């Protein structure tokens, strides 16, 4: 909701208002997932893989989302693997030009009994790094910018720890066991989320890849809807659920969880998505990554931004982790396009 008479807001106020669907001075620009690009790494001398493991470097690289690109939030987790590493998964840290990943072909768990959250889960270097980084960012930018943390949901942890195929087969063969495994894994989501809130996070992204590219909408209802609603009760900051890929068939269920916002992918049309959520939650998104941000230019980016704004999407940003080779000018095109759109509207 945009009211012309509203007084200028800080980036932080704008994002927090956007998450509550309250009036804003202009639509917040926000990426609840990674902003890292190779160009930005060079700019602040904080490169992958170190920037995923060293809190100062992580903070430096994350802050470029605000200082260089002009987003209204800072979200410092560039991967989806910090907690999986702390859970004991085999890691592939990769190089400057690729994201680190879990070797899902060498899973660490086979059965529910194996699901144990280690005692050092929050002091493991790869989770502690994020917590430490949030403290740094809070201190340096916390008054002006929304600091968003990230804690992975149990479904994605399941892919990492059981391996995607064994986990998906278990979900079909033994729903009871799968639910139990999710119940146990969700402790990791809650612990890591709480620790980031204590460190100063204003909001949390919760990625949980139950996407239409992999599983049915009925799966979302069966396994995750109630659990996501429970996260809303247990984690006392606004939550942004992230599921990339096709999700329109489960957006109604997502809206029913009471989550503050949903970060949606370009495979779902802005207007169609807005119609489904019916003002129950906020939407963040959905500028296409591989085709638009990575491969096209600022004009194409502007068109997608406008499509979102025209549909009334509450916060605008990329659909998922920004491709690492994306040009900075394509990213700055997002806030620029948002500002242009608003000034066009005011002059009417």
């Amino acid at each position, binding site marked *: 909701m945009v009211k012309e008479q509203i007084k200028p807001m800080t980036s932080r106020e704008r994002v927090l208002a956007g998450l509550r669907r309250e009036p804003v001075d202009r639509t917040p620009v926000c990426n609840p997932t990674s902003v890292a690009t190779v160009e930005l790494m060079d700019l602040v001398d904080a490169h992958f893989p170190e920037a995923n493991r060293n809190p100062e470097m992580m903070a430096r690289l994350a802050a470029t989302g605000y200082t260089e690109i002009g987003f209204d939030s800072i979200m410092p987790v560039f991967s989806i693997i910090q907690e999986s590493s702390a859970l004991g998964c085999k890691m592939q840290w990769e190089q400057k030009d*690729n994201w680190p*990943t879990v070797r899902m*072909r060498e899973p660490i768990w086979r059965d529910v009994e194996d699901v144990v959250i280690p005692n050092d889960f929050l002091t493991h270097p790869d989770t502690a790094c994020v917590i430490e980084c949030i403290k740094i960012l809070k201190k340096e930018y916390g008054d002006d910018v929304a600091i968003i943390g990230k804690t992975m949901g149990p479904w994605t942890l399941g892919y990492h720890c059981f391996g995607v*195929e064994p986990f998906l*087969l278990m979900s*079909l063969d033994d729903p009871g066991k799968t639910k139990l495994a999710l119940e146990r894994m969700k402790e990791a989501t809650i612990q890591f989320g709480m620790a980031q809130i204590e460190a100063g996070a204003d909001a949390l992204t919760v990625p949980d890849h139950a996407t*239409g590219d992999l*599983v049915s909408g009925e799966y979302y209802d069966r396994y995750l809807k109630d659990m996501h609603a429970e996260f809303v009760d247990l984690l006392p900051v606004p939550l942004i659920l992230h599921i990339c890929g096709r999700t329109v068939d489960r957006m109604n269920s997502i809206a029913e969880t009471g989550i503050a916002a949903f970060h949606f992918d370009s495979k779902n049309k802005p207007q169609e998505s807005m119609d489904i959520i019916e003002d129950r939650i906020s939407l963040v998104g959905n500028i296409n990554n591989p085709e638009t941000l990575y*491969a096209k230019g600022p004009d194409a980016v502007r068109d997608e931004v406008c499509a979102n704004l025209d549909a009334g999407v509450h916060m605008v940003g990329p659909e998922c982790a920004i491709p690492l*080779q994306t040009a900075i000018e394509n990213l700055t095109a997002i806030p620029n396009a948002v500002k242009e759109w608003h000034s066009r509207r005011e002059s009417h």
Partner: protein
Amino acid sequence: MADLQDISNEKIRQEIEEFVENPDEIERNIETFARVRPLMQEIAAALIEGDDGTVDALTKQALEDKIDALEIMDDGLIAAMGVVGIKFRDNYIFVPEVLACARAMKAGMAYIEPILSASGVEPLATVIMGMVKGDLHDIGKNLCIMMLRGSGFNVVDLGVDTSDDEFIDAVEEHSAPILGMSALLTTTMPNMGKTIEAFIDADMRDDVKIMVGGAPVTQEFADDMGADAYGKDALECVAVAKGFLSVQA
């Protein structure tokens, strides 16, 4: 021309009626299943259900009844995978269900494979498949592999994060006429082109047909990289591989 009512198995009739929409595909499936014997239809129905126990038992029974292993593979297992591929492409089923069907296929093939190789029956061809360097998304590639195997190809799976050398060595070792590469990341897509370069440098580019795929890959990108073909889903992957063979023949 056969008619739906010519198929004796009710489950197969229902599957075709409910989930197959494309007229050519309807016709092809009716032709196939109307022709095959009831036990093969039963095997196919169990595979489509993802019921590996039943596929296991029925395959064993069919072999005991002296039905030819090749017939069981073609008329039971492969025919069923065709329906599975269509249902997945058209979003009637999702990855877990397809994985269960693949497991059922494997249960049947566990009996068939040793018989076929002992009797010297050749697969259609060998296909080398792998995710390019740096890419660990393997669900789509694995579905392609299943459909290729489910269509009679022998597939060597190089897994994820495959280097140029691994691709080259595998093509050489297996004298494979077809290579498939998959990438899901913009950061790893260019590695397709690098691997193709490596084949040129190794003087092997003419020995192998190269197909590429994965969500961000497009026909245009495939052309730029110098690939021979692009496929947008697992069914196209099979069609492309078959197309390579007919060109060679």
